[in-house]
């Protein structure tokens, strides 16, 4: 620490939770060492000025999300979140294992339902899930993949152990912020990147594109891929367009698609064009008015029929929601052992299933100490944190749960880990979670080294979703080590394999510092 002088770190003291930058003795943890000293060298104003510049680049780029019908810049915090290489060695295989389990489970649910006959999962759990769609039963995707893209939400408890908080295998969003956060932060801290060996995230789009191409129906040589977006007013529109742009594929809306004789086409200025793979960012219920909600204008009639015929691949597959149901979540450790024969690498957060009468009774007794969540919720909606809730909120939630125990789970309050975050009062610890993204191309599950770190901007707030006023941080995974020290000194001349460089030419009179110029000057002076 820097003695008497005030630095942005003065007064930073972690609270009860696990702080990722500073340990209980106030020592900086090793992965954060370089970030810490870089910020230490700045003044408080300098840090604020950089944070402002960061926000401005986001407005100019149009990196926004719609909050209550208004375009807002997504708040990006100036302090990165650093994940050490050794921690990533746990997260990456853990997430991949989770995805393989979910794939196996989905294939089973929409196939022979072995897990039910073997007594692992009660049948009613599947049939009562509102995301279980019989209409895609017995439809096998061309390369067997249903979870092309997944976002497995992780948290770190007060012992520093990574745990899975929830699985997202329907249409997980947020990866665009990973990509654009990185672009913004690398302009803000150019030196740190090289020095720390931060692993790059930019290959995500190429990986996704090749995974989608591999998912194409059989016999299609050069598949035409589209991103299906609900449209420009969707809160994640920025992400849809960024993915389409960086993959080099068309971004379509439902009205651009039409189906004829079990094939999907898009309307172009040169007539109809076949579509082979649809990366859809539209929920199941809106995808096809023939099968799902008849009033939906976001999908195209006949898509599901085309998918059943195997003429188009839909990613992620329809009906995946049955696997990221929060009740199925409680069975994930068993499912991992059952399908893969492996011990789960990443543990769950302890969870009570409230449909179980004994658990319900226990939870009702300790209601004000626990977190209760609806099983089908997303975006932090309906989550009630017992210790922080008012009496009337507790009472209302209690009624909801007693009416529909199947619809709820309860968990102990997890003190999410904290990371230093710039607030109006300087740097303070704020709670974070992590959503790593995984792409399954059928041969291999690839986990993006990084992921979306969401941060709750209010002090003590434990819900980090952007729809609840959260922000994000760039996540730096270390381990892409470039040994700067051992690079041989540069040669005095660079040789391109014996090829002579071609000199750059210029207007012949521009660089002649000769007679003409002097003559002209003399001419002027003698006049």
């Amino acid at each position: 620490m820097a003695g008497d002088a005030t630095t942005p770190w003065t007064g930073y003291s972690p609270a009860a939770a696990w702080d990722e930058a500073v340990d209980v003795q106030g020592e900086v943890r090793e992965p954060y060492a370089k970030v810490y000293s870089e910020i230490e060298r700045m003044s408080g104003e300098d840090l604020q000025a950089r944070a402002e510049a960061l926000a401005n680049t986001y407005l100019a780029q149009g990196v926004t999300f719609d909050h209550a019908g208004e375009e807002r810049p997504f708040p990006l915090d100036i302090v990165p979140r650093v994940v050490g290489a050794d921690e990533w060695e746990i997260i990456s295989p853990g997430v991949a294992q989770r995805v393989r389990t979910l794939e196996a489970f989905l294939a089973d649910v929409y196939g022979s339902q072995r897990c039910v006959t073997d007594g692992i999962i009660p049948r009613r759990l599947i049939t009562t899930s509102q995301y279980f769609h019989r209409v895609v039963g017995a439809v096998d995707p061309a390369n067997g993949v249903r979870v092309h893209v997944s976002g497995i939400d992780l948290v770190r408890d007060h012992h520093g152990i990574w745990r899975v908080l929830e699985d997202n295998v329907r249409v997980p969003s947020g990866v665009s912020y990973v990509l654009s956060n990185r672009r913004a932060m690398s302009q803000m801290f150019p030196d740190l990147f090289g020095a720390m060996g931060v692993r790059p995230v930019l290959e995500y789009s190429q990986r996704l594109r090749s995974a989608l191409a591999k998912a194409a129906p059989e016999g299609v040589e050069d598949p035409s891929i589209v991103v299906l977006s609900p449209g420009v007013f969707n809160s994640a529109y920025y992400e849809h367009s960024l993915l389409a742009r960086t993959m080099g594929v068309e971004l379509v809306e439902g009205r651009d698609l039409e189906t004829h004789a079990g094939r999907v086409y898009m309307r172009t200025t040169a007539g109809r064009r076949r579509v082979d793979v649809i990366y859809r960012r539209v929920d199941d219920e809106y995808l096809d008015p023939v099968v799902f909600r008849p009033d939906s204008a976001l999908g195209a009639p006949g898509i599901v029929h085309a998918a059943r015929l195997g003429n188009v691949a839909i990613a992620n597959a329809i009906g995946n929601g049955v696997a990221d149901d929060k009740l199925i979540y409680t069975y994930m450790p068993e499912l991992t052992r059952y399908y893969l024969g492996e011990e789960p690498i990443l543990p769950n957060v302890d969870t009570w299933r409230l449909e179980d009468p004994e658990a319900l009774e226990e939870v009702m007794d300790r209601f004000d100490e626990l977190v209760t969540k609806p099983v089908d919720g997303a975006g932090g909606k309906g989550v009630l944190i017992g210790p922080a809730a008012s009496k009337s909120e507790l009472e209302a939630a209690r009624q909801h749960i007693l009416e529909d125990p199947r619809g709820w789970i309860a968990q102990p309050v997890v003190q999410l880990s904290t990371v230093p975050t710039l607030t109006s009062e300087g740097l303070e610890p704020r709670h974070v979670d992590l959503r790593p993204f995984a792409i399954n191309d059928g041969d291999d599950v690839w986990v993006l080294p990084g992921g979306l770190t969401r941060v709750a901007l209010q002090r003590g707030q434990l819900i980090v979703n952007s729809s609840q006023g959260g922000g994000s941080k760039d996540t730096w995974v270390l381990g892409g080590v470039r040994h700067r020290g051992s690079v041989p000194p540069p040669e005095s001349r660079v040789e391109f394999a014996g090829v002579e460089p071609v000199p750059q030419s210029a207007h012949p009179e521009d660089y002649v510092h000769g007679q003409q110029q002097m003559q002209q000057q003399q001419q002027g002076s003698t006049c």
Partner: protein
Amino acid sequence: MLSRIAESLFWIGRYVERADNTARLLDVHLNVLLEDPWVDEPTANASLLAVMHVPVDGAVTRDAVIRALATDATLSSSISGTLGAARDNARRAREVISTEVWESLNTTYMQLGARSRTPRPHDFFTWVRERAAVVWGLHSATTSRDDAWNFMELGRSLERADMIARLLMTKALAGTTGPNWTTLLRTCSAHEAYLRTVRSLVTEERAAEFLLIDRLFPRSIAYNLDKAETTLALIEPGLARHSQTDHARLALGRARTNLEYQAIDEILEDLPAQMRQVQRACASASDIIRDRFFLPSSSVLWSQEAV
């Protein structure tokens, strides 16, 4: 290229060009009001709004003109409204246009409020012209010459022909002697090019000729009509006779040759009517392009009752 995207690109081209030219037109109008001592201001204002096809109601003040054509972002006729619409279209076609073009449109849109509140409208107009130039420059430097380029260029050249025709109509505005030809040339950034080409003082016929039918100057009407025609041929090369694009090219070609093969003094005698014809040709070409490229030929709709 998706029809919906092509339509957005076409309109980005039109809107940016429209904002640019509206800024030029207003700039010259406000100058005329200042310089012409015998001006009947309300009439001149009203007829300028009529040229721009804005509904007029009673005596029109200078502020009302500026609001209607420049600052009121809720009006589709104003520069602010037009640039906002351009940015909305760019957002819809975000994955096709380059990041640089998007960011220039987006920052323009975000500065609009502050810029348009300036006490000196001239500064705002200069800024608008500069922003349009930035957009075009980046567009030209970062876009492949494929259909994305063609549709934007098509919109741009149609709009430019249309707007120059409107600008020339202000020569015959009621209530004022109108801008002189030197001013008009300056408004189109054509004065220097004119002087280099014609090498003589500005006369009415020569100046009109330059803005109407010069083959090489990028802001003459004939140049832009011709360019729109060529671009259409690029978009649909294997032209079948009597196809819809052919009708669009026909309308444009007729308007162009009408200017080119008519004696210049005849055009000048009847300038407003002639210019109206150019605008009509542009409008009908635009309609035909919409029918041909942007509307689905047949659309499949799912109706609940049929189940």
